[in-house]
């Protein structure tokens, strides 16, 4: 998947003198949009300058397409649901507790876990850019980075939640975490009823990406395959 976009051996793929000398799997320059041409030219330049190793680009893409994603966070949540001592460690020092599961790294260097309860629902946003806990959730979805969510989550969180199909019971407080610095927030959703005795692996399948941002709840075990990511 990343290989088909590789430009190895194309020193100037964006330059008109060279654009037609090579085999481009996604069509020739004239079929590319302005942003495609722009990114291709930029990659070509940075590779030629020696600042960027094209093989490293492929590994970076592969990492976030296949290795780092919300399944990491789901493992953390399932463990917290299953193991009260782990849950306490996660609350006390989320970075260390998450590292116990072999999960760490970029955009997850300083983690905070915030646990939903019947009294408090947590929601995470970054109003100033798109700060997101990559190490546990992977790359953020488009809506998380776009103006509607970033502008509204801190001012009308319940209206935003309604657009995700989430209606909180009366009496639930909302706490919105605006990730303005390098702390990254993982919401621990409420464990669904009717999951007593489930394995961590089975529980992890109930933990959606959105439930760990706070824009969703964990899946109902009766319909675990349905619903939002």
């Amino acid at each position, binding site marked *: 998947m990343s290989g088909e976009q590789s430009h190895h051996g194309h020193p100037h793929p964006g330059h008109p003198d060279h654009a037609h000398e090579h085999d481009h799997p996604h069509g020739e320059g004239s079929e590319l949009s302005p942003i495609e041409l722009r990114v291709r030219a*930029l990659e070509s330049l*940075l590779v030629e300058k020696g600042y960027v190793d094209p*093989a490293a680009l492929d590994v970076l893409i592969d990492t976030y397409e296949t290795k780092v994603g919300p399944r990491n966070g789901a493992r953390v949540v399932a463990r917290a649901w299953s193991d009260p001592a782990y849950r306490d460690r996660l609350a006390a020092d989320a970075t260390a507790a998450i590292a116990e599961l072999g999960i760490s790294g970029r955009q997850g260097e300083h983690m*905070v876990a915030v646990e939903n309860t019947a009294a408090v629902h947590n929601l995470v946003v970054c109003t100033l850019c798109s700060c997101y806990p990559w190490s546990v959730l992977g790359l953020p979805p488009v809506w998380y980075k776009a103006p*509607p969510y970033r502008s509204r989550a801190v001012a009308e969180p319940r209206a935003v939640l309604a657009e995700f199909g989430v209606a909180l019971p009366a009496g639930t407080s*909302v*706490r919105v975490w605006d990730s303005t610095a390098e702390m990254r927030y993982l919401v621990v959703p409420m464990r669904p009823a009717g999951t007593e005795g489930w394995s961590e692996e089975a529980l992890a399948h109930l933990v959606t990406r959105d439930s760990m941002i706070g824009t969703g709840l964990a899946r109902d075990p009766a319909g675990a395959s349905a619903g939002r990511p």
Partner: protein
Amino acid sequence: MNGAQDLGGQHGFGPVAPDVDEPLFHAAWERRAMALTLAMGATGSWSIDTSRHARERMPPADYLASSYYEIWIAGLERLLVEQGLATAEEIAAGRSLAPPAPVKRVLAAADVPAVLARGGPTERPATAPARFAVGDGVTTRLANPHGHTRLPRYLRGRPGVIERVQGCHVYPDSYAHGAGEAPTWLYAVRFAAEDLWGADAEPDTAIVADLFEPYLTPG
């Protein structure tokens, strides 16, 4: 700076419209944009704070009309020129027209897992005791900073309470401008929605933001 990136509390952008079947990337170029940005970040030519400031200086009409990876590419191009790694002519041509500038390191494919796992921690040893403790009342400062800051407009001049002491971290308002890491205490500060939005606040709502000590005054 009070740029288009400072979106908290702005109106007019419509519904959130989450996409249930959203792909991780919407086009092949987005993969390359992501990877190029990370790989250039790994050269050590600038900090994440500098790169955020590069993005937020995009003209507001362009920022709001661009997708996030488009903003990243525009920011990357700006950084390359500002840091002397490439010229606008080279970026337009898509090829080198002059020798490269030295960079601290080049990310090799084999090193990617280790570099990503290490990340870029920002916590630093404290150089002074924390001024505030959990439960302390604080008021955020008024400001009109033209440089980079992580104090959004909707949280300026408002009363809050220290919710967590997050440690001593690189201070973006300094580091974004190449003025040193200036490690500074960071606090999660809790605000009642009524203290931000008045009678238009949703009930029983708090907003918590991570704010650096210079943003805060006691009481």
